[in-house]
């Protein structure tokens, strides 16, 4: 579904991604780990179409199409969802209004009529239950005054509403208490189908106890320096990133 080939990208002239290749097949869960500043969020931003990040080389193909040519909102409507590491506040815009606009944009894209107000609210209710989100949150302005954990749960709620084909979750587990972590993981597992895929960016092995990845990648200094099965996450947790750094530096030397 997604093929990334030798992707290089820069922000404000500074090279951040230095040649990333990765393939995600339908139904797969990929975990991406890596030290702070290694470029994980930048990769997510490129995939979601943020113009702040400039692609300097490489290709990204999504269902056979050139993803890099598509506008961010079209990528969203084609099924790419990004759970933000730092969800944005939009004061005065109610979650209901925001989600209704988003859902109806998706529907229009699929040639469907907009949902009626009552059908929409019913859908909201169902999804809220699915991800066990406090129903009061949905009546407030988008992320405004939400706690860190509430913001993350709200991302999962939005994912549930939009039913993406490829969901990229950028540290959705950071800042969550144990219960919230379980809820987020449950949300992901309930939405998992044989034909949709996840890229889960995380620093912690514990999330991967709940969401079992098919593959774990380590991103270091803008490159994927290691790819292995889920046991890699355990190894990282135990040893930290130093051994990877050493390995990488040795490779470069030799």
């Amino acid at each position: 579904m997604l093929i990334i080939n030798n992707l290089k990208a820069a922000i404000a002239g500074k090279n951040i991604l230095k040649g990333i290749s990765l393939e995600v097949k339908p139904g797969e869960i990929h975990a991406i780990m890596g030290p702070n500043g290694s470029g994980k969020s930048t990769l997510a931003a490129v995939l979601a179409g943020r113009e702040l990040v400039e692609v300097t080389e490489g290709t990204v193909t999504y269902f056979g199409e050139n993803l890099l040519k598509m506008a961010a909102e079209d990528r969203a409507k084609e099924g790419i969802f990004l759970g933000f590491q730092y969800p944005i506040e939009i004061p005065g815009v109610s979650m209901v209004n925001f989600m209704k606009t988003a859902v109806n944009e998706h529907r229009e894209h699929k040639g469907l009529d907009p949902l009626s107000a009552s059908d929409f609210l019913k859908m909201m209710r169902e999804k809220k239950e699915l991800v066990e989100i406090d129903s009061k949150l949905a009546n407030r302005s988008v992320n405004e005054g939400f706690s860190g954990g509430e913001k993350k749960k709200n991302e999962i709620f939005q994912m549930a509403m939009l039913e993406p084909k490829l969901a990229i979750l950028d540290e959705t587990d950071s800042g969550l208490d144990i219960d919230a972590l379980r809820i987020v993981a449950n949300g992901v597992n309930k939405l998992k189908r044989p034909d949709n895929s996840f890229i889960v960016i995380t620093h912690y092995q514990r999330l991967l106890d709940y969401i079992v990845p098919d593959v774990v990648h380590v991103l270091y200094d803008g490159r994927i320096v290691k790819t292995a099965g889920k046991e890699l996450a355990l190894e990282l947790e135990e040893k930290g990133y130093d051994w990877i750094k050493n390995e990488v530096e040795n490779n470069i030397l030799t």
Partner: protein
Amino acid sequence: MEKDQDKILSDVTSGEYKYGFYSDIDMERIPKGLSEDVVRIISGKKNEPQWLLEFRLKAYRHWLTMKMPSWPNLKIQPINYQEIIFYAAPVQRKNLDSIDDIDPELRKTFDKLGIPLTEQKHLAGVAVDAVIDSVSVKTTFKETLAEMGIIFCSFSDAVKEYPDLVKRYMGSVVPYTDNFFATLNSAVFSDGSFCYIPKGVRCPMELSTYFRINSANTGQFERTLLIADEESYVSYLEGCTAPSRDENQLHAAIVEIVAEKNAEVKYSTVQNWYPGNKEGKGGVFNFVTKRGLCKGENSKISWTQVETGSAITWKYPSCILRGDNSIGEFYSVAVTNNYQQADTGTKMIHIGKNTKSTILSKGISAGHGQNSYRGLVKVLKNASNARNFSRCDSLLLGDKCGAHTFPYLEVDNQTAIVEHEATTSKIGEDQIFYCNQRGISTEDAIGLIVNGYAREVINKLPMEFAVEAQKLLQISLEGSVG
């Protein structure tokens, strides 16, 4: 692929004005220019009583001694008053007894603007006074309202039918000497709405006046007088549009409100005069004096305005809180896009004891627009326990526009509590991207964000108009995303 955020914003914020059409209506106009004769002609056209002609002449003579004020934050070309037509009116066939007597072209005009001149069922909650250029052409639901003793009619009709009320209240809140434009208006005012709510009556429907400038080179000088007698309530709304033209047009109106004891008046404005084109050519000069007098105890006047139009807006809807425990409120959203300029705000004059005022101003600047809030909170010596809370927020779209805040404070009573807050923010690239990522286009994202920002004010509008105002905000900032 590289798209600069400012480019997106500038594309998005350069939408077209949708009410710029001109209607070919059979009009009667007087020659352009201003003189004592012109004042007499206007008064004569309206068959006015002598006292009113004298009021006009006094104002005119006073005006001759005045100079147009200058403001540091507005750039205004000099106005040549000899080039303006001071009276233009659709030719009417006879007395307007039924809707069929209205020129079909005129009806079409208001239909196109979405303003019904017929008393339609689905709009049963709104009575409309429709004013085109210098005259009121139709007031709906007059009879229904009359059953409750409510007077809602054109200003000209009020002069004929209720001269005592007009004489008693006209100029009592905005005297003819008040300021350059108010004085000009007092000399040449054409028409407008008059409204009287009798003691103890809650007006059951929204009253509204719709102002339309149609003729070229014509000034619009309407005058509205709204009186809420003891224990009464009314919610009133005005809307305005004008054709797109290359030359500037002058609109100098007066609105006077009097609230007696325990009365409450909500006055809402959705102002959408032609703002000029993208290069700043043309557009309406909107110089308006609006003032409410909370005359009786426990009276309340709220101003809510959504200002999206006009090349230049200069207006400060104000409250004189004379009655003890009276309350004044001002809620405003002002948009300046392209080369629009707005200098708007309010004055809250606390005279009575325990008087309260609230000011919430939301400026939105885009393009090269310049948006200033100017507000005065004045607490007089005897106004013990006066309270004011003011908040002025500015939202900037792009980096060529400007926002300015000028709060003035004059407090002569130690017990007063006055608070002022101000913020300036920009629509962030991150907010737009967040919306994009959920499938929402940049244009719609800006609409959502701006409406969210303005929500506290929009919520103060009567329901029927809140939706309109939201659309208007979006339209006035929309365009094609390049």
